[in-house]
């Protein structure tokens, strides 16, 4: 579904990605772990071209992203994204946050979009928050709304950029539960995370990034119980 070939990205003199290669299959849940500065967020942000790679190729369903930059707005509709800082639109209610894109981009009727939004709010456990403004929600609630907003576009794949890192510890669980449910429903997901418990339980594959490449990858049992590389062992030793 997504194929990444030899992806390179620099910020000025700093080489962040130095040749990332991977394939992500439909319905797969890939958890990307690694130290800060290892390039995992940059990698994720390249997948919907929020960062433009310097070199390499990204194919979504066989279509090259970099050759179809003109269609990027349409391609991005297939790729939902959830951010560390939620990035809800503060001047809109929860309902408006969720329905804006389907109405404006898919030409959905307002009533239809609102009906769908209510379904999504039920799904993320916030059916009574539709009239609230984001500033009146807790961090965990904001992030669940952000997930609903991304889902409203019916994406084929969801990208999560450290979705629980800005949350108070007691709110991490509610967000991870929603994500777990999503994974169980067969959503294709790429999750950059520091939540090793979640990665181990929900991930089909763990990607350990270091020095701008995928240093080691494999099923959770292998990465967490029997990492092949010294670097991976060292990192896991620090975080587990």
């Amino acid at each position, binding site marked *: 579904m997504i194929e990444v070939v030899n992806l390179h990205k620099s910020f000025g003199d700093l080489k962040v990605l130095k040749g990332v290669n991977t394939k992500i299959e439909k319905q797969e849940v890939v958890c990307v772990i690694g130290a800060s500065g290892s390039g995992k967020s940059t990698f994720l942000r390249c997948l919907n071209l929020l960062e433009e790679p310097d070199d390499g190729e990204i194919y979504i369903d066989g279509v090259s992203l970099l050759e179809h930059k003109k269609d990027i*707005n349409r391609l*991005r509709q297939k*790729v939902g994204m959830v951010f560390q800082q939620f*990035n*809800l*639109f503060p001047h809109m209610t929860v309902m408006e946050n969720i329905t*804006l894109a389907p109405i404006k*981009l898919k030409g959905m009727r307002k009533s239809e979009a609102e009906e769908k939004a209510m379904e999504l709010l039920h799904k993320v456990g916030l059916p009574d928050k539709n009239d609230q403004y984001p500033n009146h929600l807790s961090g965990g609630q904001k992030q669940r709304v952000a997930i609903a907003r991304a889902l409203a*576009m019916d994406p084929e794949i969801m990208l999560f950029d450290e979705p629980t890192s800005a949350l108070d510890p007691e709110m991490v669980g509610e967000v991870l539960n929603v994500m777990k449910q999503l994974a169980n429903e067969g959503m294709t997901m790429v999750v950059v995370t520091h939540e090793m418990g979640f990665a181990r339980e929900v991930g089909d594959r763990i990607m350990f990034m270091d020095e701008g490449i995928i240093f080691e990858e494999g099923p959770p049992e292998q990465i967490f119980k029997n990492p092949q590389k010294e670097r991976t062992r060292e990192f896991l030793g620090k975080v587990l």
Partner: protein
Amino acid sequence: MNSIIKVLSDAIYYNLIREQRYMLFVQGLGISLQLTFYSAIIGTILGLFLALAKLSKIKIFERLATIYVDVIRGTPVVVQLVIIYYAILGSSSLPKIAVASIAFGLNSGAYVCELIRAGIMAVDKGQMEAARSLGFSYSQAMTYIIIPQAVKNILPALVNEFIVLLKETAIAGYIALDDLTRAGNIIRGRTFDAYTPFILVAAIYLYITTILTWMLGKLERRLRESD
């Protein structure tokens, strides 16, 4: 004591009442307010386009807007006014107030541009990313997400710019437009009294700007409450 009252009543009689001279102030104030209003409209629209040009990724737009803003902000407004009146629009049949509105509008646009640009840049960049990640184009993201939020940042500064603009229009007399300040000057020419008419002029400006500043304060409180 009597002599002070005599001096004051004479001053009021000669500067305001004789030949209905107060009408000069009333009409002058009308001209000043109209001029400020039209200039503010021209300046705000121009400023918005300049700001979008300055933020644009198209280099030539950005460069041209930058040059415009630098030239306008680097030269005195009174010089711009006389250039536009005598050199550029000198042969046109536009009324003076239109010429002055254009001149002040072109000037104000450069300042408004910077206000709007700062207001847009103050919106968290995650907002643009979130909008783009949903599939909105840059201009859709600006329209639905960024500008509505930027307005809150910009409005108070914009009202303040209008207050500045009202005071700046006091130089409209340079092109013989009978604004409030020039009304004072005309009366001075007839009464040979410099104090009374100009102190009255100053008092009227102060009165208007005080009202506007009070409204600005209310507006700022309203905007803060809705956060």
